[in-house]
Structure formats: structure tokens, C-alpha cells
């Protein structure tokens, strides 16, 4: 039985906390910090492995030798010099991470082990054409994708929504240019993509290809040249390892806001639809965490087939912004009616 004093103490406690309610976003805040902590742990855990992998990749690239030199004119050379650098990195152990190229490769590897939120904007424009409401009316080969979703490289699954906007050239009235026409659901399961108009979960179109290819194909246009334009940085990494070159540009910002920028380029062989061309781009890393912040890719293709490039030059630009590393990703393979699409040229 409590004493009178203990009763007063109990009443004091009751008064002190009367009417308290937790903030509505308390669990969300905790979950966010939990994910951030998980990311830090994974980044720390993979840091050492990343260095070793970077050294191994550096040697692999070096072994490509002259072939790589031929396809990366004007950029960082691979070949014997790179081989020496790889061997040197292997000897110096952890110091290999201080090499910009090694850091970039390690960051790409780390980023491919974490899930993330991806915002992808993709545009194509014909040479000399500006997509504005006052543009001339013509049968343009252009499209615009504005995709936001989550993706887990480790499971190869992702899901998101692409905003469909009306474009110039086929509009009446022209003032409707850029307005939202609709939304497309997109799911990535392994090497297959599934797309469906929002609100219609029972009818899907499915094909084999990257996220960008999924968005392009859904828009009725075929575009195969940039195999690196995937939701998964590992695809780009594979392209860079095979053909590409990397150059450290510099650092901007300080502390937690410091960003490291790298330029890269790689050569893409021609095929029956497009001529050989080069893809250039920029990768921005968070300097502290070594996680990818943004990838920008740009290429101009020329093809003989009208459905590819209208016989002229078409410039494709892809901007991928990464955030929310460690975000949970849960994707189910669509059920219902699934219409298989023909493979894209070159895919």
C-alpha cells in the first residue's frame, strides 16, 4: 500500500504527462534514421571489400589493354599505365581508395548493394529542334520520361511511376505541351520490365530490357543504344569496365555537402539501326559516404531507320538522381493479362 507521499508522487507524474501525444511522424523519423544507420553500416562494411574489388577491377580494366585505349581517346588511359596503377594499389592496400578511379568504382559497387529511390528524367530531341509550345508542327521523334521509383539492385526489383506529358509536334492546341497526360506504373523484376496504365492493374505489357528501354518502348519509340541507362548502376559500371574511361573533375561543397564529380565516356558500336557513337556523362558522388548522388548521360545517335532517329541526329539525355539509400523495396510480379512485347533492337 502506498504512503500519502507516494500517492502525491504518482499524482505529480500524472499531471506532468497529461495530454502528451507523440508527433505523427515519430515512427517515420525512427525508420528513416534506422535506414540511414543501416546505410552507414553497409557502406562501412563494404568499404574494405570495395577497395579490394576496385583493385581487382582496376586490374581487369588494365588487362583490356590496347582495346580500351582505342575506344577512349582523350580520356584517362588504360593499358600498361593502368596496370601499374592497379598493381601499385594492390601493394598499398587501403590507400587504393584514395585513387579517384578506385573510389568511383568502389562507390558504384557499394551503391549497387543498396536499395535506393531513383528519379529519372529522360528526353530526346532532334537536332535544331526546341520542344516548346511554339515549335513547328512536324512528326517528331521525341519523348519525355519523368520516372520516380525505388529499386533494389541486390534483388533486381523495382517499382515506380512514370509521368506522361504531352509533347510538341502532335498537339492541338499547342498550349497543351508539357501538361500531364497520364501515369504509367512500372515494375522491374529481374531482367524483365512490366508497364501498365495507372489504375489498370489487370493489363500489363512486359518485355526484356532496362528501365529506360521500358519507358521508351511504352512510349512507342525504340531506342537501344544506351545499355548503361538502367536503373541499376551496375549496368553502367559494366559498360565502364568494358569500354569506358573515367576522369576526376573535382570536388564542390564542404563537409556533409561535399560532392565529387567524375566525367566518363564509352564507345558504343554501330549496328543495323544506328551508327557507332559515343556516350558521355557525369557521375556525382557524396564525398563522405561515397554513394552515388547523380548520374547524367548524353549521347547523339544517327541512324538510317526513321523509327530510330528519323534519318537525322537525335540527342538522348538521361538524368538519374539517387536518394533514400536503404529504402525498403517490395515488388510483386504482375498477374492478370500480361502482353509480351518484342525485344528491342540491339537489346
Amino acid at each position, binding site marked *: 500500500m*502506498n504512503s*500519502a*507521499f*507516494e*500517492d*502525491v*508522487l*504518482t*499524482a*505529480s*507524474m*500524472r*499531471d*506532468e*504527462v497529461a495530454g*502528451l*501525444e*507523440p*508527433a505523427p511522424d*515519430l*515512427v517515420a*523519423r*525512427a*525508420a528513416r*534514421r*534506422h*535506414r540511414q*544507420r543501416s546505410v552507414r553500416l553497409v557502406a562501412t562494411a563494404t568499404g574494405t571489400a570495395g577497395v579490394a574489388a576496385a583493385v581487382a577491377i582496376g586490374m581487369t580494366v588494365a588487362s583490356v589493354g590496347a582495346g580500351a585505349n582505342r575506344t577512349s581517346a582523350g580520356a584517362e588511359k588504360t593499358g600498361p599505365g593502368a596496370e601499374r596503377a592497379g598493381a601499385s594499389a594492390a601493394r598499398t592496400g587501403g590507400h587504393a581508395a584514395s585513387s579517384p578511379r578506385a573510389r568511383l568504382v568502389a562507390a558504384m559497387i557499394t551503391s549497387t548493394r543498396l536499395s535506393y529511390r531513383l528519379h529519372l528524367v529522360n528526353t530526346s530531341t532532334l537536332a535544331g529542334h526546341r520542344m516548346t509550345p511554339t515549335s513547328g508542327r512536324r512528326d517528331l521523334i521525341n519523348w519525355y520520361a519523368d520516372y520516380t521509383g525505388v529499386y533494389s539492385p541486390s534483388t533486381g526489383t523495382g517499382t515506380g511511376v512514370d509521368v506522361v506529358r504531352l509533347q510538341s509536334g502532335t498537339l492541338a492546341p499547342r498550349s497543351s505541351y508539357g501538361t500531364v497526360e497520364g501515369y504509367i506504373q512500372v515494375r522491374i523484376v529481374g531482367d524483365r520490365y512490366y508497364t501498365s496504365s495507372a489504375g489498370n492493374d489487370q493489363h500489363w505489357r512486359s518485355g526484356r530490357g532496362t528501365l529506360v528501354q521500358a519507358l521508351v518502348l511504352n512510349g512507342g519509340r525504340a531506342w537501344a543504344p544506351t545499355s548503361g541507362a538502367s536503373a541499376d548502376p551496375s549496368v553502367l559500371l559494366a559498360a565502364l569496365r568494358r569500354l569506358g574511361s573515367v576522369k576526376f573533375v573535382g570536388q564542390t561543397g564542404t563537409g556533409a555537402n561535399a560532392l565529387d564529380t567524375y566525367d566518363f565516356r564509352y564507345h558504343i558500336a554501330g549496328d543495323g539501326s544506328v551508327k557507332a557513337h559515343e556516350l558521355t556523362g557525369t557521375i556525382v558522388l557524396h564525398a563522405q559516404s561515397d554513394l552515388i548522388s547523380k548520374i547524367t548521360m548524353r549521347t547523339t545517335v544517327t541512324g538510317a531507320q526513321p523509327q530510330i532517329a528519323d534519318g537525322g541526329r537525335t540527342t538522348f539525355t538521361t538524368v538519374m538522381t539517387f536518394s533514400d539509400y536503404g*529504402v*525498403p523495396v*517490395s515488388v510483386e510480379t504482375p498477374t492478370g493479362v500480361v502482353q509480351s512485347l518484342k525485344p528491342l533492337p540491339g537489346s
Partner: protein
Amino acid sequence: MRSEGSFEGLSALVADRGAALLATATLLAGSRAAGEDLLQAALERVMRHWHRVSDDPEIYLRRTIYHLAVDQWRARRRQPEVLGRTGTQLETDALHAGQSDGTDAVHLRMALIQGLSQLPPRQRAVLVLRYWEQLSESEAADVLGCSVGTVKSSASRGLARLREVAAVWAADDSKTLVNGVWS
């Protein structure tokens, strides 16, 4: 097994029992802001081990709140905002609280809550478990993972300190406690 990254159970728990959980955390931490920090830290800890939480999540979360309050917060030497006062200042507050303006009881309770937040973490946790949660000594010992003897000694020391605060307050105006009411 629960899937990592899916905390729907926790969201439902906080929606249903959040007020009570925050009340406990606030009493342990000394202020509403510090209490919410403590509750959030406990939620993060539970999320980290979510795949292992097979029993009632509230029991696990409550244990975590107490353990963090006693161990982690002590280790950090983190002091709630209201703990900037010294023992002497606290007694001075209690003296001022004794003014006969019709709010004596409120002032005494405030002094006791301040005194509670001045206690060492384990003593504070024991008093919250015993007099807020209304747990028995053995139940409190089970939550804190210590012996019943430790609970008894911690409660005794904590109450003694709070009685000192109340005595200073009561002596100023020659008040006496009759049937739980100061007069």
C-alpha cells in the same frame, strides 16, 4: 518472421499506445522533447532487432525504453533540459513553491518532478516503474534486468531524496500531509 523494413506493427502500436509510451519516456528523460528523443531511439533499437521481436512489441519497446534510459543515456551523460539546476537550486525552487497562493499542490508536484529528473537514471527508472507503471518490485526488477534488492534500494534512495525536496517545501510554511493532502 517479420520482414526487415516493414514496421507496420510498430506504426499501429504507436498510434494506439503512443501517448502512454511517450508519457513513460518523458518521465524517464525529464522533458517532453527529451522523452520523444528517447522514444524515437527506442523505436530505432526495436527496428534494428525487428526480426527477433516475436512477442508483444509493446513489451519489447517498453523494456528498450527503460534500458536506454538507464544505460545508454547515463553513458552519454545526457541531461534533460530541466536538469540544469543544482540540488541547492532545487530546494530553493521548493521553498518558493511553498507560497500560499492557492497553487501549493501544483508547485509541490512540479518540485517533485524536477527532483525526479535529478535522480540517477536507475533510481528514476525504478520510481517510474513503481509509481507510474504501478508495477511490483519483482516486476520492476524483471523489466530492468536487475535483482529485487536493487529495486528496493534504488526506490528507497530515490524516495528519500524526493522526501527531502518535499520536506524543504513543507517546512517553509509548516505544512503537514494529511490523507495525501498538504495542509
